[in-house]
């Protein structure tokens, strides 16, 4: 029905244009048919409305949703970035604390090791001194023992040599004198 009205209007306009001035002539020259043009304009508008209604608005809506999502994503990214920075700062702080604690532990361990080394060194020195003292005592004892042994051996050799020589040297007078000395001991 609308289309019929439009066609009637276009027909009237065209009729009036044929009867008009130079514009109508130019339009006639270029083959412009006003009713058709109006019909095309109308159909174009209808198409535009339909497209706007069923294609362009959903697309805009979808784009808006996408824009919001992207904005949300960017905001999330910023938030994540901030949290990451915060976490990084916390990590750095924890690392610094851990490093400080590790340094402290290492220092304490070094101090303890130095203390233990000193103690062990002192013990080793004491043990070495004890060993040296014992060694000296053993050497002195061995020396004394050898000296006594040597003295005994020399004495034995002296006695043996004296016994061998004395028997040959003593004269009968000497023998008598010695016997008389013993007899005097008995008589006293």
């Amino acid at each position, binding site marked *: 029905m609308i289309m019929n009205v439009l066609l009637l209007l276009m027909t009237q306009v065209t009729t009036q244009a044929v009867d008009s001035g130079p514009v109508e002539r130019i339009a006639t020259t270029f083959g412009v048919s006003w009713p058709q043009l109006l019909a095309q304009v109308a159909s174009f508008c209808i198409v535009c409305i339909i497209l706007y209604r069923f294609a362009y608005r959903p697309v805009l809506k979808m784009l808006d949703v996408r824009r919001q999502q992207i904005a949300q994503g960017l905001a999330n990214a910023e938030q994540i970035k901030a949290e990451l920075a915060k976490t990084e700062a916390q990590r750095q702080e924890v690392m610094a604390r851990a490093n400080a604690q590790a340094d402290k532990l290492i220092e304490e361990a070094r101090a303890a090791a130095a203390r233990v080394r000193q103690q062990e060194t002192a013990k080793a020195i004491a043990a070495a001194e004890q060993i040296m003292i014992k060694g000296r005592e053993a050497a002195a004892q061995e020396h004394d023992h050898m000296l006594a042994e040597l003295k005994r051996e020399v004495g*034995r050799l002296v006695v043996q040599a004296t016994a061998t020589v004395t028997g040959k040297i003593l004269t009968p007078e000497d023998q008598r004198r*010695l*016997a008389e000395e*013993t007899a005097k*001991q008995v*008589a006293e």
Partner: protein
Amino acid sequence: MKINKQAKREAKQLFRFCLVNGLLDENRVRNVVQHLVATGRRDCPAILAHFRRLVRLEIVRRTATVESAAPLPPDLRASIEAGLKRRYGPGLSTAFAQRPALIGGMRIQVGSDVFDGSVRAGLEALEKSF
């Protein structure tokens, strides 16, 4: 052999019975032994063992052993015997022996008493001092 106190006491009494003027009488010793054996007592071996020990100690105590490196002249022997009798009384039997191992001098032993004037004894003392 185990010798009890009773056996020792009896052996000592018998030994005293055998002494005459402080000297051991051989006849009495012989008689005592024969008498003990004849009785056949159960403790006879114990008494005899202790009696034998006492007699042996007495004999040793009354015996002088004179050892010398060289033979002793008679006058010196007489002098030694006189000295021993003066010191230990009469009844002392003296035995002389030659022992070259003494090297020089003389050694006299009476019981547990020893008079050692030998060169060997001097050398042994010297060796001990080392």
